[in-house]
C-alpha cells in the first residue's frame, strides 16, 4: 500500500486534485480571454468646439489617437476659418469688403456655392447671408454673460432685412462679393461642413475606419458599428417631459443627421422665448415647428435642411425634402410628430 502504487487511493486522490487544479486554471484563463473584452473596439474623445460639445467615436485598426488628433485639428481649422466671431478670417474679410470683390480659395468657393444652391432649393428658408439679423438679435453674443438682450423694434428688423438675403451674394470664378450691406453668417451649415470634413479626414487616413462624429447633436457617420451594424441615434424631445427624453430612434450605417430646434439657443424675456432660427422673410424667430430632424447623405445638407425644416410650412417640407435627398421628422408645438415617407425605414433595425 505505498503511494507509488498507481491505483492506491492516495495517488488517485492526488491525481484528481492535480487535474482539477489544472483544469481550473485552464478554464479560468480561457474564460478570461474569450468572454472579457479588455480593449474597447471604439475610442472616444470629448471636447468643446464650435460653441458646443463635440464627440468623436472612432474604431480604427491602427493608431486611433493619431486619427482623432487629425480630426480634431480639422474641426478647429474649419471653425477658425468660418466662424462668425473671428474677425480675422476669410468670412470677416468678405463681410468687411462688402461690394468689393474678395478672392477666395476652392474650399470657400465650394461652401458658398453650395450654400447658395441650398438657399435656392429651400426657397430661402436656409440662408447663409443673415448676418445682419444675427447681430441685431444678439445671437452672436449669446455666450457672453454681460450681454443684455432686448427685442429689436420693427424698424430695426426692417432695416436689417433690407441688408440680408442670399441673393446679395455674388460668386464668380475665384471671387465673391456682397451687395446691399448683407453679411455672411454660415452658422446654419458650418457644423455640418466640419463634420463632413472630419469624416473625410478619418476615411483618408484609414479607409476601414468606423464610428461617428457628433458636434452639438449633428451627427455624421464614419462607418457602420463594428463594421456592419447600425448606429442607434435618438432624437431629443424638444420639451422636458417627465420620463421622456427621446421622441424617436433611428438606425444609421452611413450619412448624416441634424436637428434644428427652438429649444437650443434662445433668450427669454417675460416668459416669451426668442430662439436663434431666424425666418428670412419676417426677420424674427420662426414659429410653428419646434424641432426638425433631417437625415441626408452628408451632414452639410442635413444641417441646412434641418434649418429650412424649422421655417418652411410643414406640408411643404414633407413634400419637398425627399426630392432633395432628405428624410425629415417634424415636431409641432403640441409635440405631434410628422415625417416624410422615407423616414420610417430609418426607424427599423436592419436584420
Amino acid at each position: 500500500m505505498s503511494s507509488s502504487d498507481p491505483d492506491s487511493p492516495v495517488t488517485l486522490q492526488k491525481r484528481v486534485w492535480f487535474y482539477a487544479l489544472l483544469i481550473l486554471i485552464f478554464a479560468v484563463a480561457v474564460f478570461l480571454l474569450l468572454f472579457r473584452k479588455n480593449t474597447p473596439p471604439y475610442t472616444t474623445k470629448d471636447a468643446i468646439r464650435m460653441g458646443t460639445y463635440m464627440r468623436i467615436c472612432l474604431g480604427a485598426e491602427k493608431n486611433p489617437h493619431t486619427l482623432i488628433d487629425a480630426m480634431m485639428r480639422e474641426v478647429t481649422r474649419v471653425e477658425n476659418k468660418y466662424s462668425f466671431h473671428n474677425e480675422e478670417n476669410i468670412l470677416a474679410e468678405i463681410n468687411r469688403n462688402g461690394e468689393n470683390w474678395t478672392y477666395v480659395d476652392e474650399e470657400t468657393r465650394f461652401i458658398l456655392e453650395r450654400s447658395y444652391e441650398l438657399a435656392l432649393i429651400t426657397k430661402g428658408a436656409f440662408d447663409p447671408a443673415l448676418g445682419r439679423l444675427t447681430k441685431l438679435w444678439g445671437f452672436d453674443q449669446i455666450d457672453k454673460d454681460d450681454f443684455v438682450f432686448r427685442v429689436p423694434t420693427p424698424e430695426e428688423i426692417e432695416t436689417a432685412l433690407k441688408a440680408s438675403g442670399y441673393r446679395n451674394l455674388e460668386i464668380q470664378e475665384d471671387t465673391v462679393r456682397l451687395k446691399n450691406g448683407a453679411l455672411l453668417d454660415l452658422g446654419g451649415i458650418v457644423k455640418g461642413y466640419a463634420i463632413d470634413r472630419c469624416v473625410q479626414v478619418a476615411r483618408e487616413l484609414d479607409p476601414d475606419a468606423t464610428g461617428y462624429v457628433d458636434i452639438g447633436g449633428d451627427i455624421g457617420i464614419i462607418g457602420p458599428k463594428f463594421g456592419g451594424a447600425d448606429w442607434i441615434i435618438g432624437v431629443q424631445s424638444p420639451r422636458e417631459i417627465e420620463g421622456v427624453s427621446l421622441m424617436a430612434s433611428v438606425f444609421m450605417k452611413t450619412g448624416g443627421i441634424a436637428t434644428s430646434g427652438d429649444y437650443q439657443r434662445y433668450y427669454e424675456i417675460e416668459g416669451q422665448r426668442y430662439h436663434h432660427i431666424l425666418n428670412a422673410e419676417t426677420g424674427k424667430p420662426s414659429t410653428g415647428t419646434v424641432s426638425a430632424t433631417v437625415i441626408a447623405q452628408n451632414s452639410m445638407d442635413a444641417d441646412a435642411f434641418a434649418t429650412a425644416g424649422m421655417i418652411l410650412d410643414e406640408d411643404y417640407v414633407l413634400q419637398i425634402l425627399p426630392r432633395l435627398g432628405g428624410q425629415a421628422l417634424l415636431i409641432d408645438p403640441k409635440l405631434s410628430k410628422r415625417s416624410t415617407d422615407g423616414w420610417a425605414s430609418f426607424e427599423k433595425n436592419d436584420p
Partner: protein
Amino acid sequence: MAMDNRSNFFKKISARPLMRKNDLLVIGGVFVLSFALSFLIPQHQTASIVIVEVDGREAYRFSIQKDGEYPIRGCHPVGGTNPVSHTLHIRDGQVYVEDAQCRDKLCEKMGKIDHPGQIIVCVPYKVLIRIEGYQVNENGASPDAVTR
C-alpha cells in the same frame, strides 16, 4: 483492520466504470465553478471615475461612489479671478451640476448622468464633465448618440 477495510473499499470503487462518470462530473463542476469565479475576479473598474475638464485639460477627478458636493472653478469668460462657476453633485452614483453661473444654464438642464458615454457641458465656462469608461453599447437598448 479498519485500514484494510477502507483500502479494500476504495479498490472496489476505483475498479468500477462509474468512477469515470464521477471524474467527468468533477471536471464539469470545475468548469462551472471557474466560469462563475471569472465573474467574481474584480475587473478594473470602468464606471467609477468622474472627470471634469476645464478648457480641454483635466482639472478634477472624483470617484462616483463618494457622495458629495464639490465646487468647480470653470474658465471665467471675462478673465480675472476664477470664482466657483458650478457645484458638482455626486449622489447615489449619479452626477449633476447646480448653481451654474452661466446665463442659459444648459449644463443644469442636461440632468443627471450615471454611466460612461454621457456628458455634461457648460460651454461659456468651458467645463466638460464625463464618466470614465467604454461608451459603445452593444445591447441595443439605449442610443449610441442623440441628435438635438
